[in-house]
């Protein structure tokens, strides 16, 4: 890739935007650009971040998964109920919860591949179904009283860095390698660009979809465990609205909703930009409603900017 091509990639534009934003926000408040604050923000964005890693795969295949928030809520509830009502040891309950997340994701993939229902509609339906299951299973009661050791996951640190941030970074590296450097990653891009051509060139399209949607469920489950640990309780309405934050981060990061384009690095940049705005604007004295407006403006603005630059880059 030529230097010019590199300069005008969406990720580069985004990185520049991120640096600019950080500089402006740091100017507005001296509490913004401190190590403690940065680490704290890393802790807070771990859940959305982990799910966004999997969502990148989904969106690159021209799909979408709106049910991730509901899967998070369902896994959290099942984990809590198995531990409290069924009396299972907590690690076992957590394990079973994660397995359930995979099954929920697999169900999405199954409906999409076997019945040909478009991902938007499938996950719209499972969004309601999984949330409803969470509410029904829990009978709207929350689960509390987890043992203290469990809270180190969401509230503790390891060598000065929040525990969940380590997990997030690990998963980020793994997914970046898979998407960018492995045959499976290349197959994902191929499916997103043209699924029919991919089928004909021997790529197992159906199985790839199944794996990717199961991955989405798995990562939602991991995020659920971290979330419960961070807030020390389980509620059936956890994760409501999360899917929009995740999709915004991925799309801001340069993944095209039509498939075939997008990187983990882009997603990480988009995520960081959004978190920086939410935190920095608040510290600068902007209230919640103003921040929401800014994020919408940045989303549209970043994509307009990126489109302009890419037109220039193509010569």
């Amino acid at each position: 890739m030529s230097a010019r091509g590199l300069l005008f990639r969406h990720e580069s534009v985004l990185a520049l935007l991120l640096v600019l934003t950080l500089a402006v926000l740091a100017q507005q408040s001296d509490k913004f650009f401190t190590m403690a604050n940065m680490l704290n923000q890393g802790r807070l964005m771990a859940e959305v971040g982990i799910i966004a890693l999997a969502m990148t795969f989904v969106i690159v295949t021209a799909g979408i998964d709106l049910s991730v928030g509901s899967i998070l809520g369902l896994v959290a509830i099942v984990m809590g109920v198995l531990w409290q009502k069924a009396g299972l040891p907590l690690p076992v309950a957590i394990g079973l919860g994660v397995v359930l997340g995979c099954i929920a994701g697999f169900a999405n993939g199954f409906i999409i591949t076997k019945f040909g229902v478009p991902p938007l509609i499938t996950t719209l339906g499972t969004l309601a179904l999984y949330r409803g299951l969470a509410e029904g299973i829990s009978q709207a009661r929350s689960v509390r009283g987890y043992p203290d050791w469990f809270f180190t996951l969401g509230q503790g640190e390891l060598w000065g860095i929040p525990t969940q941030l380590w997990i997030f970074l690990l998963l980020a590296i793994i997914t970046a390698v898979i998407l960018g450097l492995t045959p499976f990653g290349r197959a994902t891009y191929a499916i997103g660009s043209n699924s029919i051509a991919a089928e004909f060139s021997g790529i197992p399209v159906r199985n790839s979809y199944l794996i990717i949607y199961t991955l989405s469920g798995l990562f939602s489950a991991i995020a659920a465990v971290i979330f419960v640990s961070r807030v020390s309780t389980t509620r059936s309405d956890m994760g409501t609205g999360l899917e929009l934050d995740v999709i915004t981060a991925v799309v801001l990061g340069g993944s095209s909703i039509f498939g075939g384009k997008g990187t983990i690095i882009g997603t990480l940049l988009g995520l960081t930009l959004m978190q920086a705005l939410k935190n920095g604007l608040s510290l600068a004295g902007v209230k919640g409603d103003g921040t929401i407006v800014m994020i919408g403006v940045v989303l549209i603005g970043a994509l307009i900017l990126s489109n302009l630059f890419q037109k220039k880059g193509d010569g």
Partner: protein
Amino acid sequence: MNTAAVASNVPSRRWQWVRSYGQELVVLSGIIVLMIVVGLYNPRFLSDNNLISIFSGNAYIAVAAIGMSIVIMSGHIDVSVGSLIGVLATIAGTLAVGDYPVWVAWLVPVAIGVIVNTAVGALIAFAGIPSIVVTLGMLSILKGGLISITKGNWITNMPGEFLIAQQRWLGIPAPVWFMVFLTVIVAVWMKSWPLGRSFYAVGGNPEAARAAGFSPQRTCVLAFMIHGFFAGIAALLFATQLQVIQSTVPPNLELTVITASVIGGVSILGGTGTVIGSTLAAILFACIGSSLVFLNVSAYWLRAVLGLLILTTVLADMIRRHRNRRSL
């Protein structure tokens, strides 16, 4: 090829009609079945008041779904319609309380809806940004903007003449009239007039449509413009249903509207579906909501049942489409 054999395989006209309106018929039969089953279980379900409540309760969703269906048919989507309705409803209420003539309070929000969505459509068509991204951004901008301006204060004390949704003409609530009238007009327009048909063309196959002289860009802007108009009317119905306007965005409204369009047969892949389907679907939702209360479904499982019904309807539609394709 043996022409006789081919001729005998061509389905009759009536069967073709049934097939092309397949999804709408599925939804309609769903409504009828529910009415029979629940009516038998608790006859009060079929009382005048309850039927009127079912048909008018979601009328504003049906009207919004008309515009949404056109947008989806032409290959796009709008996740900001809920926020837009919230904003337009607040504008309508503010004008009504502010001593402006009632017709101003009715027309201005609709006009603003058209203007805002035309801008959105233009952004999508000419800046090349996917509709889901632009409308995701608009959702935030409108939601935050609404709270900033109203500070969360509700609007009360609106003049009675303004409350159009509470009026009844010939015994039937105004929202039902709007819903039926607008649905029929748009459905006929989209089947019979070239401009109406262009939405199907562009959504189904943009390149072929372009070759045939339809410009995808112009169609996109037009689709969003019309969508803005219907969002404005839906906002009026929403704002005048009660005596107070909550100046927050109704949660999940956009998902409900999109689901209504999709269940009604509008294909997310573009190109098929009718607004009759989306209106019937909105009525079906109201019917299901009421049914679940009448059937004493445990309140804690309500949402799960709703989700299951959505999935079942969609699966039924997909199976029906496969069967259609195979029998050709």
